[in-house]
Each structure stands twice: as C-alpha cells, then as structure tokens.
C-alpha cells in the first residue's frame, strides 16, 4: 500500500497525504524536479499534464496544461517558494487562463512536501492548504475526471437536499 494515511481538516481546509515508496529520497525528489517525470503523474488519468516550463528554483515558476478527453486544455501554474533538496519543497499552485498565465485575483493553493528516509525507502508527506470552498471548486473543475465530477455533484446534491 503506497498511501499510508490521509487527514482532512474541513475547518482549516487542509489535506495531508502520507505515502511510502521503495526508493531513495533523491529518486523520489526526481519525479518532482524532472518535468518529463512530473507530467507522467501530476494530471489525473484522463487529463495528462504537459509542463511547458518548470523553473525548479526558489521563486521560479512553472506553466502546464492538461489535455482532457474532449480536447479541452485547462492551464495551471506553480511558483516554487522553498527548496531544500532532497528534504522539503513548498510551492503555490494556481489556475491559469487560455494564454497560460495566472488568472489575476484567483489565489493559488499552497503545497508543502517533505521527504524522509525510512528503512524501506522514503516517506513523502504532502500538505495542501486551501483558501476557501470557491477556490477548491475552481481547482477541481480544472481537469477533474468525469467520474469525480459526478461524484462531487452527487455529494453536493445530497447535502442540498439534506439542508432543505
């Protein structure tokens, strides 16, 4: 089992996912640093990502788009805020417009990732911190698989009917 634990905090709007890999921290770090490896896992299965820029340095930015089953290409961006190879990285991840540039006024989400050596390889912890529900919905609408969109709208339908 790759994912060891997940924690969600609906009051603080944060999510923590802990995963363990049978590889060294340096090797796990490479799947983040190398854009050709990064784009193989960043997008959901039905929305593979293509990174057109990946400036992996503090203050450096990335640009990417994902290609959906209908040929739609939602764009996103990263900004590296902290890099401590191969232990920790912090970055902002936001929505971009059709021109590939950040959408003004839409705040990015914050992601903190740590890599710890363990006996079997590496423990990777990702913490995602969101600003508000509207931001989360916008991020999800971007390149979410159809099944997941349906799942979320079903949940929201349940909540609405429950509240009525």
């Amino acid at each position, binding site marked *: 089992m790759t994912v060891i634990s997940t924690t969600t905090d609906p*009051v603080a709007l944060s999510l923590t996912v802990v*995963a363990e890999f049978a590889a060294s921290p340096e090797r796990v770090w490479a799947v983040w640093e190398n854009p050709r490896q990064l784009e193989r896992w960043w997008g959901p299965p039905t929305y593979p990502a293509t990174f057109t820029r990946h400036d992996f340095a503090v203050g450096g930015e990335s640009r990417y788009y994902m290609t959906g089953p209908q040929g739609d290409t939602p764009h996103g961006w990263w900004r590296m805020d902290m890099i401590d190879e191969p232990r920790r990285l912090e970055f902002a991840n936001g929505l971009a417009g059709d021109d590939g540039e950040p959408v003004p006024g839409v705040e990015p989400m914050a992601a903190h990732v740590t890599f710890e050596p363990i006996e079997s390889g590496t423990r990777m912890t990702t913490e995602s911190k969101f600003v508000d529900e509207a931001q989360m919905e916008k*991020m999800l609408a971007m390149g*979410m698989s159809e099944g997941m969109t349906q799942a979320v709208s079903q949940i*929201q339908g349940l909540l609405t009917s429950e509240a009525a």
Partner: protein
Amino acid sequence: MDHVFRALADTTRRDIFQRVIGGGLSVSTLADDYEMSFAAVQKHVSVLERAALVTKERHGREQIVHGNLSTLRRAAALLDAFEEIWIGRATKIAEILGEKGSAT
C-alpha cells in the same frame, strides 16, 4: 462568503456554533450566557451567518439561530475529492519508481 476558518477562529463563535448545532437557540438565550452585550453576541452571530455556518430565523420578536452543518460537510466533500487526486498521484509515482532503469 467569509471562510469558515476565520469565523471559527474565535472561541465565543466556536462555542455559539457548537451550541446551535444541537438545536435552534434565540440570540437573547445565547447572550445570557456570555459576559458581553447583546449587540456583541449579535455581531458574532452575523460573522457565523456570513460564513454560512448558521442561519437566522425570525420567530415573533425573537431571532432563532440554527446551525448549518452542510457548510462543513461541503468542505469535507471537496477535500475528499482532492484526497482522491493525491492518492491517484502517489499510486502513479510508485509505478514510475518501480520501472526498470529508474534507479539513480
């Protein structure tokens, strides 16, 4: 909509929210239990209302405050969707790391 986190960052508001989740209470009933003015309590209720954590209902001369759990549930449902995304990503990373010739 003000975010729930800011609304619940205050001890009094957290206390009010917890109490009205159990059933509707009037603003004056709530105000009786805090060492602050009716207006101050009303202000706290307004902050919770803006964050959609409570709703107010007029009942004669009284204002009844009700807790709205669906706001927290909605946030929880959204977080669950991101959780799925990250589980998918971790699974894919494990696959990439397991490929031949991937060792450094």
